[in-house]
C-alpha cells in the first residue's frame, strides 16, 4: 500500500496550526492538519481569549508591529469564519485596560509603557495612562482600591473555544484532511519532501509546518530547526454568569459574550506540571475582588491551570529550515491574538515556499549567541 501524500502537512491542531491551515485552506484535500490527541498539553483549550496589543514588543519592536497587524486583521478573520461556518467567535475590540492598585504600581506601569513606545523602530500606538476617574469613566464598577491604569484602543477579546471550533469547521468544509489522535514520532526528510511517522500510519508531504506547541522542541531538530520552548503555567478561574457589566476586557479579568466572568493570571516555570496552586488562585481571586468588590458574592464554577508555550525571550519563533527548505516552524504563546496574522500573512508565505525577510527577527537564530570570550 502506498503512503498517502499531501502538499502541506501542519503538525499541531491547536490555534496556531489551525489558523495557518485556515490560511492554506485553498489546498483542500491536499492539506492535512495532524493533531496528537487528548493527551496533548492543549494551550488552545486552556487560554484566556484576549486579543491583546498593549505592552507587547518590549525588547523586540517587530513583535509589536506583528501583534498590531494581527489585531487589525482580526475583524476580517472573524467575518470569514462566520461566512464559512455560521459560527460567531464573539470578537470585541473595544479597547482594553490594565488596572493598577497602588500609586507605585501605576508609576511603574506608566514608565514601562513609555519605554516600550520609545524604542527605536517601534510602530507607535497610543497607550493612555488613566487616573482613577479615567478608569471609572470606562468601567464604573471598579472598587475604591483602583488608583488608575493604562488603556489601549487596540485591545479586545473573543471566545477562544469557539475560535478553535470555527477554524476546524472551516477546514472540514473544504475537505482538508484533519487527523486527530495522530501523534508524529518522527519526521524523515526525503527526496521530495518529508515522510511523517505516526503509530497510526505514515504520511508523505512536500512541505511540513511545525505548529505543535511544546512538541515543537522535540520535532524541530528532525528538520534542522530549533525551538527551545518550555512550559509556562498560567491559572484561570471561571465564575458563574452574571449580567453584562464588563464591556471592555481587563488584562486579567474579562466577561465573556455569554456572561461568564474569567480571571486569568500567573506565570510559573514548573515544567510539565498542570497542577493547580491554591495559593496562586487565592491571590488572583483576592486581587479581582479588590478591582471589582461585587465579585465577592459571585460563585466560582471551575479553575484550571494550563501551559503557555514560552520561548527563552517570550517572543514567537518563525523559521524556515536552511537544510530542508520545505520545513517551517511556528510557535508562540499568543495563538488567539496572532491567529489573523498566522492565517493572512504567515500561511501565504508558506504557500509561496519562502518566509520573507520580515520574519528574520523571529528566527530561532537569535538564541545562538556565542559565549563571551
Amino acid at each position, binding site marked *: 500500500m502506498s503512503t498517502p501524500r499531501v502538499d502541506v502537512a501542519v503538525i499541531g491542531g491547536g490555534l496556531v496550526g489551525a489558523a495557518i491551515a485556515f490560511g492554506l485552506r485553498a489546498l483542500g484535500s491536499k492539506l492535512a492538519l495532524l493533531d496528537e490527541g487528548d493527551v496533548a498539553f492543549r494551550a488552545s483549550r486552556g487560554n484566556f481569549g484576549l486579543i491583546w496589543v498593549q505592552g507587547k514588543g518590549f525588547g523586540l519592536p517587530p513583535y509589536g508591529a506583528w501583534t498590531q497587524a494581527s489585531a487589525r486583521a482580526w475583524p476580517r478573520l472573524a467575518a470569514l469564519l462566520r461566512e464559512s461556518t455560521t459560527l460567531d467567535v464573539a470578537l470585541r475590540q473595544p479597547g482594553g485596560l490594565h488596572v493598577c492598585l497602588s500609586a507605585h504600581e501605576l508609576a511603574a506601569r506608566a514608565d514601562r509603557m513609555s519605554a516600550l513606545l520609545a524604542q527605536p523602530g517601534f510602530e507607535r500606538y497610543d497607550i493612555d495612562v488613566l487616573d482613577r476617574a479615567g478608569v471609572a469613566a470606562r468601567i464604573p*464598577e471598579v472598587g475604591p482600591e483602583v488608583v488608575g491604569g493604562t488603556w489601549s484602543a487596540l485591545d479586545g477579546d473573543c471566545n477562544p473555544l469557539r475560535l478553535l471550533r470555527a477554524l476546524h469547521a472551516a477546514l472540514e468544509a473544504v475537505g482538508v484532511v484533519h487527523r486527530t489522535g495522530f501523534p508524529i514520532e518522527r519526521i524523515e526528510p526525503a527526496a521530495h519532501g518529508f515522510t511523517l511517522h505516526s503509530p497510526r500510519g505514515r504520511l508523505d508531504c512536500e512541505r511540513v509546518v511545525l505548529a505543535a506547541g511544546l512538541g515543537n522542541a522535540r520535532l524541530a531538530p528532525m528538520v534542522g530547526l530549533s525551538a527551545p520552548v518550555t512550559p509556562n503555567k498560567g491559572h484561570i478561574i471561571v465564575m458563574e*454568569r452574571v449580567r453584562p457589566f464588563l464591556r471592555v476586557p481587563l488584562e486579567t479579568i474579562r466577561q465573556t459574550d455569554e456572561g461568564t466572568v474569567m480571571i486569568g493570571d500567573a506565570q510559573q516555570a514548573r515544567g510539565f506540571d498542570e497542577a493547580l496552586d491554591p495559593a496562586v488562585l487565592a491571590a488572583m481571586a483576592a486581587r479581582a475582588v479588590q478591582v471589582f468588590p461585587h465579585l465577592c458574592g459571585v460563585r466560582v464554577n471551575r479553575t484550571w491551570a494550563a501551559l503557555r508555550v514560552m520561548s527563552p525571550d517570550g517572543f514567537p519563533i518563525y523559521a524556515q529550515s536552511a537544510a530542508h527548505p520545505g520545513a517551517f516552524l511556528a510557535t508562540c504563546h499568543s495563538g488567539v491574538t496572532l491567529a489573523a496574522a498566522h492565517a493572512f500573512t504567515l500561511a501565504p508565505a508558506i504557500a509561496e515556499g519562502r518566509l520573507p525577510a520580515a520574519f528574520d527577527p523571529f528566527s530561532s537564530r537569535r538564541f545562538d549567541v556565542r559565549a563571551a570570550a
Partner: protein
Amino acid sequence: MFARQPDLIVERGTIDIVVDGAVVAARTGDTVAAAMLAAGLMCTRTTPVTGAPRGPFCMMGVCFECLVTIDGRGSQQACLVAVAPGMRVDTQHGARALVAAAKDSA
C-alpha cells in the same frame, strides 16, 4: 405533579415563605426546592444564554439547575437551602446581576 408521600410525612409544623411575591406553605425541614415542587412551582430559573426554563433535577446539590435568588442573593441552590420563616425567594431570569440592588431590573 409532585405530592408528599403520606407515610413519610412527619408532622413538623409549617413555615410560610414568599416565592415571587406569593405566600407558599412549606414544612419545617423542607429545602426551598422541595417546598416549591410541593407547591407545584416547577420552574426555578431561566438560563442566561437561551432563556430556557429550568427546575430542580438532582435535588442533591450537583446539577445547579435549581438556582434561585434567596433574600436578595442570587444563584443560590434551592435544593441545598432549608426554608426559614419569612424567607423571600425569587425565581431567577437569565444571569444574576453583579450588584444585588439592581437585581429586579430585568
